[in-house]
């Protein structure tokens, strides 16, 4: 499959599509934490780097098969998400945001000094196992599982916490446990995305996972529409391809990117598809199809 794609599609477009796929997995993880459960996390790149490094080290040092390396990376990130989530999720709003920034920075500095990860030089020679098929199969699986999760009882309690934490608590939801769960699953997806990333780039460096990367992911979730799976996907596609399209303006690229963020937020303050769910689109299609009046 990959060999066929490599022949038919221009390498440049294939690359962008693979990166879009990886970003969708990462952003859907963040969407669970920030978009759905309403806990502002500005350190998602930290979990991505944990997954990237853990899976890369598994591949290089232990010769682990790709699937096992990916799983290991995702589990390491989920474990740390769980560990960090317990004490911090009782913090609120911007205090939580600050702590997540702090953890991501600490993780970055840790890898800058971590011998097996190559310190500041970075880690190279990671087998390039990530291809179009693997990425998009995983994207499909993640979307389906995400949808299942969000329509389940647990998923509804995620939304409930975002809408009103006190009301949710008084309805018998164990808010701390649910928040930690959302954070852990979100980190798991962050780690999975990180593993795919490192096995695609075959070279990683702590600076790849800095504050700007976390911000980029947050932009995708908020721009597309908080808490919506289709919205997140649109946000990812737009913000991943936008910088590529802006290559025509060359050095002014980031200038346009910054200005566009402001303009988009002014005209669509709640994101492009604020809170539209797959379910709503179906309903909308149904109406368009002319069933009933």
């Amino acid at each position, binding site marked *: 499959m990959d060999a066929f794609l490599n022949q038919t599609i221009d390498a440049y477009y294939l690359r962008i599509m693979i990166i879009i796929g990886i970003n969708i997995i990462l952003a859907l993880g963040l969407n669970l934490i920030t978009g759905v459960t309403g806990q502002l996390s500005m350190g998602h790149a930290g979990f991505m780097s944990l997954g990237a490094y853990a899976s890369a080290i598994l591949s290089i040092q232990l010769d682990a098969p790709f699937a096992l390396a990916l799983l290991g990376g995702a589990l390491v990130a989920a474990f740390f998400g769980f560990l960090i989530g317990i004490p911090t999720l009782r913090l609120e709003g*911007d205090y939580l945001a600050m702590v997540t920034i702090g953890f991501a920075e600490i993780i970055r*500095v840790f890898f800058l000094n971590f011998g097996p990860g190559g310190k500041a030089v970075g880690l190279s020679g990671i087998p390039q196992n990530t291809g179009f098929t693997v990425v998009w199969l995983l994207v499909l699986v993640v979307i389906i599982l995400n949808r299942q999760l969000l329509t389940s009882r647990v998923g509804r309690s995620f939304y409930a916490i975002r809408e009103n934490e006190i009301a949710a608590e008084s309805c018998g939801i164990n808010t701390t446990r649910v928040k930690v769960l959302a954070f852990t699953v979100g980190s798991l997806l962050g780690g999975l995305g990180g593993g795919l990333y490192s096995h695609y780039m075959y070279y990683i460096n702590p600076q790849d996972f800095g504050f*700007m990367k976390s911000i980029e992911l947050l932009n995708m979730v908020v721009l597309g529409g908080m808490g919506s799976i289709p919205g997140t996907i649109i946000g990812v596609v737009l913000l991943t391809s936008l910088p590529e399209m802006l290559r025509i303006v060359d050095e002014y690229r980031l200038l346009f990117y*910054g200005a566009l963020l402001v303009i988009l937020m002014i005209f669509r303050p709640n994101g492009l598809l604020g809170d539209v769910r797959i379910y709503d689109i179906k309903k909308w299609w149904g109406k368009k199809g002319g069933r009933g009046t």
Partner: protein
Amino acid sequence: MFWEQLLNGLTLGSSYALIALGYTMVYGIIQLINFAHGEVYMFGAFVGLFLVTAGANIFVALLGAMAFCMLLGMLIERVAYRPLRGKSTRLSALISAIGVSIFLSTLMVLYRGPNTTRYPAVLGDSTFQLGSLQVSTLQIIILVIAALLMVVLELAIKKTRVGKAMRACSQDLEASKLMGVNVNRIISLTFATGSALAAAGGVMVGIYYNAVWPYMGTMAGLKAFAAAVLGGIGSVPGAMIGGLSLGVLEIMGIAYLSSSYKDAIAFAILILVLIIRPQGLLGQKLSKKV
């Protein structure tokens, strides 16, 4: 050794405190983390550099940078935040702030290139002996200016009409509006004040560390935000104390622990404090309204 490190820490901390004040004042009124604030600080440092290079006295340069950033802060608020106010979630405003931040740092990169520019030595540093302590005149000047600015700010907030309006707005924006406060003007003035303080911090850091570069605002902004949160975000004395203690602890950490973990130290302290005291050092614990 210890006392010298303490003095170094206070010098660094006073720059954090000056930037943190802008974060905390804006946050106190409109609950927005103004992510463009670090870039305002960077612009302040550069405007100071231009004025000094053009031959201006350092104090003229300081005032010029502050005036420029006042206008810049008001412009940012007018263009990127005011259109969103009242009709969007706080997160959209945050993304808008991030957009402004990317825009401004890119603007400076396009103008000056991404590399470091050296600050001309304008104040001629000399050191003198104070007991067993080596003190540099530069540090003293920076500390005095920072202290002066903070005293002026404290007086302005406590004694003037505008200051009173600012305090009213941070307590309750809607009620202040009903009492006849021109809320938009007060928010604009808050941005102006915070930006001017950040500019002063920028010029002083430029002189002290002898270097400015377009991305200097990112890390400084993050750490200043950490300082504001440490002190209890929304609290003006909290930002001062948070900034100074973060600076001191960071320098102590570098001196006695390890310099390779420099950037992690500030955040580790912050996380520990927040786990023990979730509202920050001086923040008020508000009971939630149902």
